[in-house]
């Protein structure tokens, strides 16, 4: 299908992965904030660096094969990141080591959480804005043709 090949080429697939990742990470951050005073709770997170490495590996291999603009983006199924059949990105959150344990055995770090949340929001905004401009290009090309 023409539309299919347009939507699964260029930057859109990797933008889609980034949006899914940021949405999934937001969930974890919200979970950590909700449990800010739960005894024995250990924070959970997925490292954005790992996600970037995972995504850039897929982009590199696409560049090697087709020059980067054509063909579907094939991401690997790793333990940390798995793409399900319906396109959902499944994350495997880890409890990062370190952090000071409070008296209730909770390694909360509110400042770090807030910073992560702001960064994550920025990443999400960047990805959606880029996707929007891609869609705008698509819209322009459609309206010019009719």
């Amino acid at each position, binding site marked *: 299908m023409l539309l299919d090949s347009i939507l699964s080429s260029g930057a859109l697939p990797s933008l889609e992965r980034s949006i899914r990742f940021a*949405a999934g990470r*937001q*969930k974890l951050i919200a*979970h950590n904030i*909700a449990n800010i005073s739960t005894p024995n709770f250990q924070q959970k997170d997925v490292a954005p660096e790992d996600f970037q490495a995972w995504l850039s590996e897929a982009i590199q291999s696409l560049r090697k094969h087709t020059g980067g603009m054509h063909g579907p983006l094939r991401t690997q199924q790793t333990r940390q990141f798995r793409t399900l059949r319906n396109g959902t990105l499944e994350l495997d959150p880890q409890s990062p080591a370190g952090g000071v344990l409070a008296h209730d055995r909770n390694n909360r770090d509110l400042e770090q959480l807030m910073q992560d949340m*702001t960064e994550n929001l920025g990443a999400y*905004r960047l990805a*959606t804005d880029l996707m929007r401009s891609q869609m705008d290009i698509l819209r322009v090309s459609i309206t010019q043709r009719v």
Partner: protein
Amino acid sequence: MYGTLDISTSGMVAQRTRLDVISANIANKGTLLDAQGQYSPYRRRIAYFAAGNPNAASRGGQALGVHVAEIGQDQSPLTLKYAPNSPYADEAGYIRQPNVDTTTEQIDAMEAVRAYEANVAAAEATKQMLAQSLRLIT
């Protein structure tokens, strides 16, 4: 993304419950009798949190969030006060009073309010993300 708002809401609900418990403790600081009018000094209540949200709609959502597992009683000793004229005084002239310490409750209340605000901030960020993704379709 809608599941993310549920998580922050569960946090707000839990912190509000905790604040309810704290208010009840302060209100009952001088309560000596139980609901039946029997002498039974009030014991400080504590809200115990646990991770996970059993009220979530989806099974995936139940793993995330927070809920109040139990509201327990503080078993620390009740304070004694010398009041020989009180009808509830023991042979030595002491009455047992609730083990509520207003300072502790105030600090706990502050912590609960700040934690509540952190959840509100998380919900705000999620809302911004939702609005951002809605703008994709317009």
